[in-house]
Each structure stands twice: as structure tokens, then as C-alpha cells.
């Protein structure tokens, strides 16, 4: 199951390079006092482990003037969770949760595949229609939560149950593959497989979405409203914040993120697969957000932390894959990590630990 680990103490140039960069990021995060410091530190630790125990982990190669390598794979494969985590961060910050993001990814991917294969649609429609559907799904969730006042867990569960059925409906049960002969093939495949500035295009998409989200939340008052509503819903309403609209917006935005992620995934595997697309990714997204420092109860959020958390999860998974675990077996460490992190964050846990400490230590604590 787990291949024996071989220690290799020499550091190659690229290994040193990566370690140095990560160390710098950790120090920067520490100085800026952002919660992202924790996942970044964990990433750095993981990098150290890989530098010594995993052969060629940090090797980068140039092929066709594009950059390849394991770190690049991590960035690319982690793009889905990074995108989902962006929306999930805002939803969790308002005190809610969205379990339907995986299903929405499936719907969006299915729509794109069918548009290309069955309808020979122009690229612009292949982009626009799945996104529109995803936005509608997000809006649907938002309406259920803010207007009908249904618990977020329950409201998004509905789409989680029905969503893949809708995706199946769109593909009529098939898994439409997209091959060269179809009209929008080149442009579409570029999304998941193309390169921009030497890096996979997916990374650029994530960067752009991150920028948009950051601008929306920090350059407008939306970020403050989201934190306010999540921290104290009543007081926010008394202060005149329109909590309903805020919640509506964050769920819709999450739908958008899931839609984009679905497009990238479908482009990557060149298939619209209603049952596999986005499967179990909602937990990864929630995990990334929690690791990144946003509390499940809502309030202050950190986009940077969530993205770092998503990268950490992807790096962990990749490391485990290389060392012989299958991606499904990797679920075990992931689950343990999630429960541990939540436990560490839980105030009840702190209370119990404090009670165990001897009285002297307790007073200092």
C-alpha cells in the first residue's frame, strides 16, 4: 500500500528554490497576520517532506515551451477546489454552507459537452449557457435560504440530490466525449488544457476569479456586510444591512464558481460525465475553507486562506498518490485532517483541554 520511503538528503536547485519561496510566503503571511499562515506553513512542511522523501517532486521541465512538473499538476488539479473554495468561503462566512457545488459542476459540464457535441454550438454559447445555468442554480439556493428561510444545509441538499439527475437528463444518460471534429473543440479544450504565460490556463482562470472575488469583497462594502451578517445577523439587520440580499448574492456567486469549475473539469477530461464530475468535491471545498481560517459559524473570512487550504489538500492528495495510495484511499487521511482541524477550532474543545490542565497552567492560559 505505502511504498517504502527513501530518504534523499541532497537538495536540487529547484527543491531549494521552492522551499525558499514557500518559506518567504510563510513569513509574509505571518507578518500580515492573515489566517493563511497555517495552511501555508503546513504546505511548507509538506514541501520539506517531499524534498527529502519524494524523488523528483519539484522537477520542472520545459516541453514545447510550456512548463510541466508535479507542482504544476498540483496547481492545475487543484484549480477546481480553489474555485469552489472561493464561493464556499463567502457562503460559510454568512453562517451557511453549500453542499450542491459538486452537482452544479456536473450540470455545467454536462451542458457544455452536449452543446459542443449535439448542437455544434459556437464557443460563446458553450461558455455562456452553462454559466447561466450555474448562476440560476446558485440563485435557486439563495432564494431557498434567504426568502424561504430554509436551513442552508437542507436547502442545498435538495440540489445535491437532484442535481446529478438533472445532469444525467441533459446528457440523456450518456457521457458525451468531445473530439476534434466538433465545432468549438479547440477553444473549449484550451480551457482545461491550454497554456497561458507558460502555465496551464486553468491557473489563470483561478487567478482572475480570485482577483474578482477579492475586489468584490474588499473594494466594495460587500465583504464587510458578509462578515457582519455571519457574525451577528440580528445586529446587522438592526444596523440596516440587507441580510437577505447579501445571502442571495453569495449563493449565486458560489453557483458561478461551480459553473466555471465544471467547465474546466469537463474540458480537462474532454467528457461530460454527470456522475463523476465534482464528486466529493464539496467536502474538499469545505475543508479548504475551514483550514484557511474561516469559522463554520460565520464571520471573518480569508480568501487567501481558503486558496492556500485548497492547495494544501491537493498537495497532500498528490503526495499520497505518488507514494502508492490510490486517490480513493486518500480519503482516509483527508477525513482525519478535517475532523482534527474542526476539533482544534471548536471552542468546546479548548474548554475541555483547559479543564485537563493543572490549575497553575490554567491561570496562565
Amino acid at each position: 500500500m505505502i511504498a517504502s520511503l527513501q530518504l534523499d538528503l541532497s537538495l536540487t536547485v529547484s527543491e531549494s528554490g521552492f522551499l525558499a519561496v514557500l518559506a518567504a510566503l510563510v513569513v509574509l503571511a505571518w507578518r500580515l497576520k492573515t489566517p493563511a499562515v497555517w495552511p501555508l506553513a503546513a504546505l511548507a512542511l509538506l514541501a520539506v517532506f517531499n524534498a527529502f522523501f519524494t524523488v523528483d517532486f519539484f522537477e520542472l521541465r520545459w516541453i514545447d515551451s510550456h512548463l510541466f512538473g508535479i507542482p504544476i499538476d498540483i496547481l492545475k488539479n487543484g484549480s477546481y477546489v480553489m474555485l469552489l473554495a472561493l464561493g464556499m468561503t463567502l457562503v460559510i462566512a454568512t453562517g451557511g454552507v453549500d453542499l450542491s457545488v459538486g452537482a452544479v459542476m456536473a450540470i455545467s459540464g454536462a451542458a457544455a459537452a452536449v452543446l459542443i457535441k449535439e448542437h455544434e454550438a459556437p464557443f460563446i454559447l458553450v461558455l455562456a449557457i452553462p454559466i447561466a445555468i450555474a448562476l440560476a442554480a446558485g440563485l435557486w439556493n439563495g432564494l431557498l435560504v434567504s426568502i424561504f428561510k430554509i436551513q442552508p444545509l437542507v436547502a442545498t441538499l435538495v440540489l445535491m440530490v437532484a442535481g446529478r439527475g438533472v445532469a444525467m437528463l441533459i446528457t440523456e444518460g450518456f457521457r458525451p466525449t468531445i473530439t476534434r471534429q466538433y465545432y468549438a473543440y479547440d477553444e473549449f479544450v484550451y480551457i482545461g488544457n491550454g497554456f497561458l504565460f507558460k502555465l496551464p490556463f486553468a491557473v489563470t482562470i483561478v487567478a482572475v476569479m480570485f482577483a474578482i472575488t477579492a475586489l468584490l469583497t474588499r473594494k466594495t462594502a460587500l465583504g464587510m456586510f458578509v462578515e457582519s451578517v455571519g457574525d451577528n445577523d440580528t445586529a446587522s439587520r438592526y444596523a440596516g444591512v440587507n441580510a437577505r440580499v447579501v445571502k442571495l448574492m453569495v449563493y449565486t456567486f458560489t453557483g458561478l464558481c461551480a459553473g466555471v469549475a465544471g467547465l474546466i473539469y469537463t474540458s480537462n477530461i474532454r467528457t461530460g460525465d454527470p456522475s463523476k464530475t465534482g464528486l466529493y468535491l464539496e467536502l474538499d471545498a469545505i475543508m479548504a475553507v475551514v483550514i484557511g481560517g474561516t469559522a463554520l459559524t460565520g464571520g471573518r473570512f480569508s480568501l487567501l486562506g481558503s486558496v492556500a487550504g485548497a492547495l494544501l489538500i491537493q498537495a497532500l492528495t498528490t503526495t499520497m498518490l505518488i507514494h502508492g495510495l490510490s486517490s480513493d484511499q486518500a480519503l482516509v487521511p483527508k477525513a482525519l485532517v478535517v475532523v482534527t482541524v474542526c476539533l482544534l477550532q471548536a471552542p468546546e474543545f479548548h474548554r475541555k483541554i483547559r479543564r485537563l490542565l493543572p490549575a497553575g497552567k490554567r491561570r496562565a492560559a
Partner: protein
Amino acid sequence: MKLRIDSKYIPLMASALVLVGLYVAGCAAFADRNFVSLGVIAKLFSENAFLGIAAIGATFVILSGGIDLSVGSVVAFTSILIATLCFDPALDPRQVGEVAQLLPADWLPMHPLAAIAIAVTLGTLFGTAMGCLIHFFKLPAFLVTLGGMFLARGLAFMIRIESLSIKHPFYAETITNRLNWTPIDGVQIPLIVFCFLGLFAIALYMAHFRRFGRNVYAIGGSEESANLMGLPVAKTRILVFTFAGFCSSLAGVAYTFYMAKGDSAGAGVGLELDAIAAVVIGGTLLSGGVGFLAGTLIGVLIFALIQSLINFQGTLSAWWTRIIVGVLVLVFILLQNFVTAASRAQQKE
């Protein structure tokens, strides 16, 4: 004389109506194709017995105000564990999974009953562990059981990635000889249905005739009040999740008899959602405190009927089931919200 109906019965009555309506519709639409037959009804039960078993555990969890997302994964874990333990390495040494390699050679193959006992015990303890985490550290149930879902599925994969058929003679015998009861020609009622109905009866008894059951309702209705009343909240909650773990692993056992194999990847995928859907459609409030086991039975039957109708229809794809179930869940949730709001308004008068 005005007939006063407690508001909590309304969703249950609605479910019953839906069930009857669906059945009548089916009879009307497919009368020519033998829809109206005992065989069909028997099939409804037999094909969904293992969903039913899982849903019984889920009902108690939801009644107590929680939720359990780990059901399907525990089914998978149980099934592959049993399959691996029953495996005879002498038959095909290559097939043995890594975990089985760790066990002393003469332990395998185990008698299925021993394997079942081990698997069910593990599944039950798994539930206990989740219940403890949820209660003592006040972690949200959805998160702990979501983690549990991943953990159980991952452990199943660690036991063995591919599925494994069970060729142990005990299974073969039971399945062919002792399993089916055929009262009338063409009507097969497998043992599993009796298990389900038996469990249902026990659960019914526990819910309505034991303090434990009433405490479950109390905690779901108002945990604060339950605490103030001095009810054993911790014990009850942990017991609820323990029982759910037991039901999930029992469903896994049912799966092995049904499919004669253990499957870490394919077993129970989405089962937790189906179970929750059955419970909700059966009239139990997702917030807890209100609901009926009878409702869950109705919910399971509705689920089964929808699938059956789609089968009979022939042209609609099977995933319509998911969509219809999702829609029904939504409708019932909205109904529940509406009824709760209405009864609160009525109280003010």
C-alpha cells in the same frame, strides 16, 4: 364537532396521499402490464429493503435533530469487509487484498456469520465514535458525519479497491435455499424483507414504548427544554448515532446477500441522501422532534414506487428518479416550513 388535527400529522397524511396517488396512477397507467399484482408489491419491498434498513437508523438521527451523511460509506465498508473475511485464499491467492494479507493465514476464510458479527460491531462502534464527537465537542453533525463518510469509504478502499464476489458456501446456500419464501406462485419474498420489517417493528416499539424513544423526540423538539427537564441528553444522542451505525452496517450485510459481493466503490453511493429523502418525504421534520417511523416506511415505498413506475414506463431514464425525489424533498420541506409557521401563528391567538 370540529375535528382538530395536530399539525404534526399533516406531512404524514400528505405522504400517505402521495403514496396512494402514485400507486393508483401506476395501476391506471400500467394495468395491462401486470402492475396490479402482488409480485410487483413484493418486489417493491425486496428491492428496497436495504434502503429501508438504513432509513430506519436515519429516522432516529433526524428525529433527534441531527443528520447522518455516512450511511452509504458504512454500507460499502461493511460489504467489502465481509467479502474479504469470507474469502478463501486457497481459491485464488492473487485476489486477496492487502488487508487480508495482514491477517494470519488460517483465519481466512471466516465463517460468514463471524464476519458479519465483526463487521456489524465495527459499524456500530463507528456510529458511537461519531456520536461522541458530536455531543462532547459540540461539533456540527453534518460535518462529523461528512468526515465519517469519507473515512469509511477510504477505509473500504484500503481493504480492497476492486469489488469481490462472495463464494462462500454459506452464502450460496442461504441465497438459493433459505432466502425466499414463496407463498404464492410468482411472488418471492426474500429473507431480507423480513429483516427489514422485523427491524421496523423493533424500531417502532423503541420509539413509542421506551423512554429512549421519547427522549429522542424530546431532544429533537427542544434540546434546551430537554436539558432543563433533566433528560439524559448525552446518552440518548450517542445511542442514536450508535443505532444508526448499526443500521447502516446491517444494510451493508443486506447488500452482500442481495448482490453476493462486497464493493467498496459502488456500494451505497448516494444512499445517505436517499435515506434522508425517504425520511423527509415520510413526514419527519428535518429539524427534529416531529415525525413517524411509519412515515419512513411510506417514504421508502414512495421511493420504490417512483423507481418502479419509471421502469414500467420504459422511456424515461432512471435518473428521473433522482430529480423527482429531489423535487419531492423540496416540496415536503416547504410544506414542513409552512406547517410550522402556521402552527406558530395559530398559537398566538
